C-alpha cells in the first residue's frame, strides 16, 4: 500500500512598504524612473555614507504586527546580513535577526473542505522584521554582462515569517490573501505580487501522515503570482515525495521556481557559503517603542474587513454580496463610505461601484486600489442625476471620464453643456419634428403598438444628443399623439 504524505509549508513574505522615501535615505521610492535616478551615496553604498532610519517604516511594521496579533519588541535593533551580490551595493543587507520588531503573532484563515464547508484555522507568525530591498539586475542582451540599477536599493521591506502551519496550496493562498487584505487596509503596502511589492518564498517539506517530525525542507524563490505559488507547491511536493519513494533524501537548499518549465532547480554555487555573519549594525542605534507610542499606533489601527462587514450589514441596506465586494479592498470601502455619507444614498453608491466601476476596472485590467476618482465626485454625480440636471445615460458617460481622469462632474456638465433639457417648450419642437419624420412609427403606435413610442423617444434623444429628460419626452409624445 502506498504511503500517504502530508505537506508542511511555511512562508517568508516580503512586503514593500508604501513609504515615500527609502528606509535609510531621502531618496524617492517611486516606481519607474530612469536607472539610478533615485539614488544617493547611502543607497549605493558609497564609502563614508551612513544610514538613518525612516520613522514611517517602524510605524508601518509595528502596525502590521499589531494587526496580526504579534508582540511588539519594545527594544529592537538592526543587524547586517553579509553576502556578496551586485544588487546589494554594500554587500551587506541591513535587516533584523536578533531582535525583530514583531514576534509571536497569527492570522486566521478560512478555506473550504472537500464538501465546500468553511474551515477556519490559525496560521502562526513567527516574526516580522524590517529590512532594505536590493537593486535590480538586468541581463544585457548585447554583451556578456549584467546591468545594475539601484533605484529599488533601500526601499523598505518587512519580512513576515510564518510558522510551518500550512498544509496545502489553498491554505497558502488564503494566508496570503488575508495578509494582503490586512496590509492594504493599513495602507502599509499595495501588496502586488506581479509588481513585486509582495513576494513569497515557500518553505516546504513532506512527511508521512501521522509523523510528528518535520521532513527536510527546501526554500523556493521567484514566485510572483498565486498561480505560480500553487504550481510550485504542487511541483515541489511531488518532487520530494518521488525522492523519498525512491529511497533518496531531500537536500536542504534554496530552489528557484521556473514558471515556464514548471519545475524548480537548485540555486547552489560553491561561492555561496550561506553564512551571513549577522551582527548588530554599528551605524544604527536601537529603536525603543514606548508605551505611549504603542498606544498611538493601536489607536491608529483601522477598522478591518470582518468588523466592517458586520457594520455595513447593520448600517446600510445593501445586498451581502455587494458588501463582500465593496469591503474587498480598503479603497473601495473608503469610497463607498465617503460617497454614501455625502449623498445619503448608499444603495446608489453601491450600484455605481458594483456595476460601472467593476466593469471599467475589468476592461482596464485594474485593481480596485487603483481607482482614481474622488468619493465626493461620485456623490455629486448621484446628486445631479437625482436633481435631473443630467439623465442616467449622460451620467454613465460622465462616469467613464471621471473614472479615467477624476473630473468634477458638475463642472464637466457645465463646460460641456450636458445639462438635460426638461423644459417642455424647448422639447416640444423637436418632438413635433420627430413625429413628422417618422410616420410609420406614429401609425404603429396609433395602431396600438405601445412599443413604437420607444423608437420615437430614442429618435428625440438622438437629436437632443442624449440631453433630453426621457420622462418629459415620453409625456410630450403621448400628448402629441
Amino acid at each position, binding site marked *: 500500500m502506498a504511503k500517504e504524505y502530508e505537506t508542511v509549508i511555511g512562508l517568508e513574505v516580503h512586503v514593500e512598504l508604501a513609504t515615500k522615501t527609502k528606509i535609510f535615505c531621502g531618496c524617492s521610492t517611486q516606481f519607474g524612473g530612469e536607472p539610478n535616478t533615485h539614488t544617493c*551615496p547611502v543607497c*549605493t*553604498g*558609497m*564609502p*563614508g*555614507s*551612513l*544610514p*538613518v*532610519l525612516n520613522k514611517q517604516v517602524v510605524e508601518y511594521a509595528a502596525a502590521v504586527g499589531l494587526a496580526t496579533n504579534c508582540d511588539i519588541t519594545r527594544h529592537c535593533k538592526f543587524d*547586517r546580513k*553579509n553576502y*556578496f551580490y*551586485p544588487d546589494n*551595493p*554594500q*554587500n*551587506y543587507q541591513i535587516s533584523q535577526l536578533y531582535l525583530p520588531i514583531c514576534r509571536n503573532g497569527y492570522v486566521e484563515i478560512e478555506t473550504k473542505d472537500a464538501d465546500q464547508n468553511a474551515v477556519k484555522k490559525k496560521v502562526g507568525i513567527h516574526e516580522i522584521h524590517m529590512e532594505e530591498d536590493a537593486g535590480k539586475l538586468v541581463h544585457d542582451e548585447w554583451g556578456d554582462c549584467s546591468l*545594475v540599477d539601484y533605484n529599488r536599493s533601500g526601499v523598505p521591506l518587512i519580512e513576515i515569517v510564518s510558522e510551518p502551519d500550512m498544509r496545502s496550496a489553498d491554505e497558502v493562498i488564503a494566508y496570503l490573501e488575508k495578509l494582503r487584505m490586512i496590509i492594504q487596509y493599513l495602507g502599509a503596502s499595495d501588496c502586488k505580487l506581479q509588481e513585486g511589492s509582495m513576494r513569497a518564498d515557500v518553505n516546504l517539506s513532506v512527511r508521512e501522515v501521522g509523523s510528528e517530525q518535520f521532513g527536510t525542507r527546501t526554500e523556493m524563490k521567484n514566485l510572483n503570482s498565486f498561480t505560480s505559488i500553487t504550481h510550485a507547491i504542487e511541483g515541489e511536493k511531488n518532487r520530494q515525495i518521488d525522492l523519498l519513494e525512491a529511497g533518496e533524501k531531500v537536500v536542504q537548499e534554496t530552489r528557484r521556481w521556473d514558471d515556464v518549465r514548471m519545475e524548480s532547480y537548485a540555486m547552489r*554555487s560553491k*561561492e555561496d557559503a550561506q*553564512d551571513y*555573519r*549577522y*551582527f548588530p549594525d*554599528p*551605524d*544604527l*542605534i536601537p529603536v525603543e517603542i514606548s508605551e505611549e507610542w504603542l498606544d498611538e499606533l493601536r489607536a491608529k489601527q483601522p477598522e478591518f474587513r470582518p468588523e466592517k462587514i458586520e457594520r455595513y450589514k447593520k448600517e446600510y441596506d445593501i445586498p451581502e454580496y455587494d458588501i463582500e465586494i465593496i469591503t474587498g479592498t480598503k479603497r473601495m470601502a473608503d469610497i463607498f463610505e465617503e460617497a454614501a455619507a455625502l449623498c445619503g444614498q448608499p444603495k446608489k453608491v453601491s450600484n455605481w461601484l458594483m456595476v460601472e466601476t467593476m466593469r471599467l476596472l475589468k476592461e482596464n485590467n485594474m485593481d480596485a486600489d487603483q481607482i482614481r476618482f474622488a468619493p465626493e465626485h461620485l456623490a455629486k454625480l448621484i446628486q445631479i442625476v437625482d436633481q435631473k440636471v443630467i439623465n442616467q445615460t449622460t451620467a454613465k458617460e460622465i462616469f467613464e471620464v471621471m473614472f479615467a481622469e477624476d473630473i468634477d462632474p458638475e463642472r464637466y456638465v457645465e463646460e460641456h453643456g450636458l445639462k438635460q433639457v426638461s423644459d417642455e417648450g424647448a422639447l416640444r419642437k423637436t418632438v413635433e419634428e420627430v413625429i413628422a419624420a417618422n410616420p410609420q412609427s406614429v401609425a404603429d403606435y396609433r395602431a396600438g403598438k405601445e412599443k413604437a413610442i420607444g423608437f420615437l423617444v430614442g429618435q428625440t434623444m438622438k437629436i437632443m444628443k442624449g440631453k433630453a429628460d426621457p420622462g418629459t419626452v415620453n409625456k410630450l409624445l403621448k400628448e402629441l399623439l
Partner: protein
Amino acid sequence: MGILDCTAVELGKKIQAGEVSVREAVEAVIEQIEQTEGTYHCYITWDKEGALRQADLIQKKIDAKELTGPLAGVPVAIKDNMTTEGMLTTCASKILGNFVPTYTAEAVRHLQEAGVVIIGKANMDEFAMGSTTETSAYGATKNPWNPEHVPGGSSGGSAAAVAAKECFFALGSDTGGSIRQPAAFCGVVGLKPTYGTVSRYGLIAYGSSLDQIGPLCKDVTDTAVVLETIAKADEKDSTSILRNDTNFTAALIEDVEGIKIGIPRDYFGEGLDPEVSAAVKKAADELRAHGAIVEEFDLSLVDYAIPAYYTIADAEASSNLERFDGIKYGYRTTEYEGLHNMYKKTRSEGFGEEVKRRIMLGSFVLSSGYYDAYYLKALKVKALIKQAFDDAFEKYDIILGPVAPTTAPKLGASLSDPLKMYLGDIYTISVNLAGLPGISVPCGVDSKGLPIGLQMIADCFNENVLIQAAYTYEKIREQLQERQG
C-alpha cells in the same frame, strides 16, 4: 617668527589683522612641502593650484568680513579616509586609487565653512589599519624628528604634516589610538573626542563603533578651537550626539587645583620603556605640584582590551570593507572570469596584506559557529571595560598614563610581527572601546631625541576637563623649558 612657526590660532589672528594674507600662508606651506615632502611623504595628494584658488576666495570673504573666525585662511591637511568632493580620496589603498568623491565629509565641511584652506590629503595606514603609516599603498611617511623612524599611525601623515610644518593643523581619525599615538610620536597634540561628538558621515569606516575624527595640532589651544569647529550633531549620522557643551575654548584655563588624577598601576608594568615611564611620571609630579590630586589605582582588565578590540574592530571592518568590490567605484581587476572571480581578484589585488589579514580575522570571528565565542564574548568584555572606566571616573576626573609603550620605532621594525604591533596599542585602545575622550600632549624627548607623549583620558563628554588639564600642563612645560633656556 616666521609664518610657519605660528600656531593655527596665531596665524588666524594675523590673517584677520591683515598682517599675513591667506595666499602668503598657503605659499609658505607649499614652499615647505616642496622642500620637505620628498623626505617625509606626509601627503598622498596635495594640490598647489587648488590651494591657491581657495586662498584667494577665502581672502575675499575675509576682506568682506564674511569670515571672521579663528581658522579662516589657515592651511590644513585632511587624513585621506575622509571624503572630499572633487579631491582624490584613497584611504591609502590601491582599491580606491582613483576614487574622487562627489560629497564631502561632514567634519571637513565644518572646517570649510570656517574658512580653512585644504592643502591636501594626508597619508595613513591603509584603511587606518596599522600603527606606523607603513601599510599605506603609497609609501611610508617618515617621522620629521628622525626620518629613520615611523611617525606612528594610522594618522601618521596628519601628525607628521603638523610636525614638519607642512600644514598648521590636520584632521585624523582614531579607532584604537590612531590620533593619539602618531601625535605622541611626532611631538604634537592629538585629541580623540567622545564617541559621537564629531560626525562620521564621509569618514570611510574601519570600525564604525570605535571610529572618531579629531584634530592633530601644534598646541592645546589650536586643538580646542578645531574641536569646537567640528563637534556638531549631524542628522546624517545616527550615532552622532547633540551636545550643548562644545564651547571647548572656554576650558583653556591654566588651573589644575583640585583636579583628581588617577594613574593606573597596570599601565606601568612590563613592556613600558623606562624613559617613557619616567617622563610620564614626571609630568604627573608637575601636575601634582600645581595642585592636582594625583594617586595611583588599579584600572584592571587592561590586558583584555587588545583582544576585545581586534575582535570587534576587525569584525566591523570585514563588513565595512565588503563594499569595495570593483563595481561602483575604485579599482577593478583587468582580467576575470565571472562575477566571483572578479570580486576575488579585485579585492586580493586591491587590498594590502594587513587589510586582508584583518578582513579574514573579522570574517572568521563572525562566521557560523564562532560568533558567540569570539564576537559576542568581545562585546561582553567591552561592557566590562566600560564598567571599569565608569568605576574609575567615580573617583577621578582624569586618568593619566603613557600613549604608547615606546617612542617611535624604526621604519620596518613593526610590520614583520603583527601581534607585536597590536600590543603597542595597549594604552590607547580601551579608550575607544569605552567611547571616552583622550588627548595626547608632548611631555618630553627620549635619549634618541624622539618625542614622548602623555595621555590623559576623561569620562564621556568631559573634553573640557581634559583640555583644561592639558592646557595647564602645556603651560607648565613651557615655563620649565623657558627656565631651562
